């Protein structure tokens, strides 16, 4: 019967001890420990969430980069194509212009040459005429130095003249 009849002294001391223990541990151990554990759990969770968000952001950025790159490449291609076109155009234009200019120059040169040729021909003609006259004069003068010859010529000339 001793076993199941609680001793009031032990009840008293147990109650006091337990309540003091509860009070001290609650204030200085359980609350700080549970708070620290909770804080850590929260921080881990928020860190995980943040990591997830960052990963999403990263993938978003990567895809954005890729599309930007693609766009840039396409733009570069169009620019290059355009530039080639423009270059060809310029070359063609320049060729055409050069051809035109050349033709014009040639034309001018030809005209000039013709002019010069004409002038030169005229000159030559004049000179030939003058020279011929000179020569003729000199020849005539030589021929007609003696009278006899003059007379002969007149005769000849007269012979040719047929009086109709």
């Amino acid at each position, binding site marked *: 019967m001793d076993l199941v009849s609680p*001793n009031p*002294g032990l009840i008293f001391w147990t109650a006091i001890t*337990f309540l003091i223990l509860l009070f001290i541990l609650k204030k*200085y151990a359980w*609350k700080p420990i549970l708070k620290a*554990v909770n*804080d850590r759990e929260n921080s881990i969770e928020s860190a995980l969430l943040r990591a997830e968000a960052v990963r999403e952001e990263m993938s978003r950025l990567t895809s954005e980069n890729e599309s930007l790159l693609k766009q840039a490449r396409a733009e570069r291609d169009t620019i290059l194509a355009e530039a080639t076109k423009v270059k060809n155009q310029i070359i063609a234009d320049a060729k055409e212009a050069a051809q035109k200019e050349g033709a014009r120059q040639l034309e001018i040169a030809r005209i000039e040459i013709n002019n010069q040729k004409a002038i030169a021909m005229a000159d030559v003609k004049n000179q030939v005429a003058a020279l011929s006259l000179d020569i003729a004069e000199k020849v005539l003068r030589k021929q007609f130095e003696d009278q006899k010859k003059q007379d002969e010529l007149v005769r000849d000339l007269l012979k040719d003249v047929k009086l109709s």
Partner: protein
Amino acid sequence: MINGSILKSKILNISLICAFFLAFGAFTAKASEPEKKAEKFDAGKTAMEHITDKHEWHFLGEKVVVPLPIILYTDKGLEFFSSEKFNPEGNIYKGKYYNYSLEHDKVKVVDAEGKVDEAATKKVWDFSITQNVAGMWLSGLVLLFVFLSASAAYKKRAGKAPKGLQSFVEPVILFIRDDVALPNIGVKYERFMPLLLTVFFFILINNFFGMIPFFPGGYNLTGNIAVTFTLAFIIFLVINLNGNKYYWKHIFSPNPWWLFPIMIPVEIVGIFSKPIALMIRLFANMLAGHIVIISLISLIFIFNTIWIAPVSVGFALFIDVIEVLVVFLQAYVFTILSALFIGMAVQEHHDEAHQEVI
């Protein structure tokens, strides 16, 4: 497998430790044997002596005994003296108000010839610092040391992973929080966490110290009905002071109305039977373990031969290993049932509470 071998080696280690303690206990018990050689060995008496509270601390069996203060509250005033005054056994101490003697570790008022005066004894309240009280204080100091230093570590290493003592206590604290308090109490669990944690660790450490046959153990605190009564009474107060309207409605207005005469008395008994179940479960389990082990060791002295010792020690070792499990199990069961009862008292929905009882 690797796990299996680790488990086996752990069990082996625990067994070795227990065997050491047991051998030591057996040795000390044997050492005290020759004094009682004349009378026949009484196993029941030995067992009772081992499991009841004492006014001196048996550090090492009966060889190293430390006297403890005796505090008596009599009808005439307080008495305060050392338990040494009762030595040698049966000595009568002349106090300020009465003469006292120790009989079966109970302080009795006696007259000059040593005759027990039962009427006067009833007026004397024994508030002595007994072996149980001293052991409880020691275990309390150990708890304070462990958890205050763990708490300091949390403050110092805020936000970091647990280390050392922290990683030792944290899984247990989280276990109490996530597997005991949260599922049984629900959203209001945070208010009851300090109580549940204190109850769990108080019972656990005292169960463990009870398993050690010498200092710092050697006492039987959780197998003492006064202690389990106090703990259960505290739980009783917490349950009923926190009971919400659903809890009281469940008790005082059963459905349908014509069950009133049966259900109200049943529910009222239920209020008290819950903490009483807590009290008796812990008390009986721990006491039974102590009695079984001391009985097995007593076999050596009943047969009065050393050759029975291997059998005794083997069986006692077996029970001791089971007790290591029981130590955890009873602390856990007490805590989870406290949480369950508190949860039933604070839960908002009547129907859910009812389902959990089933």
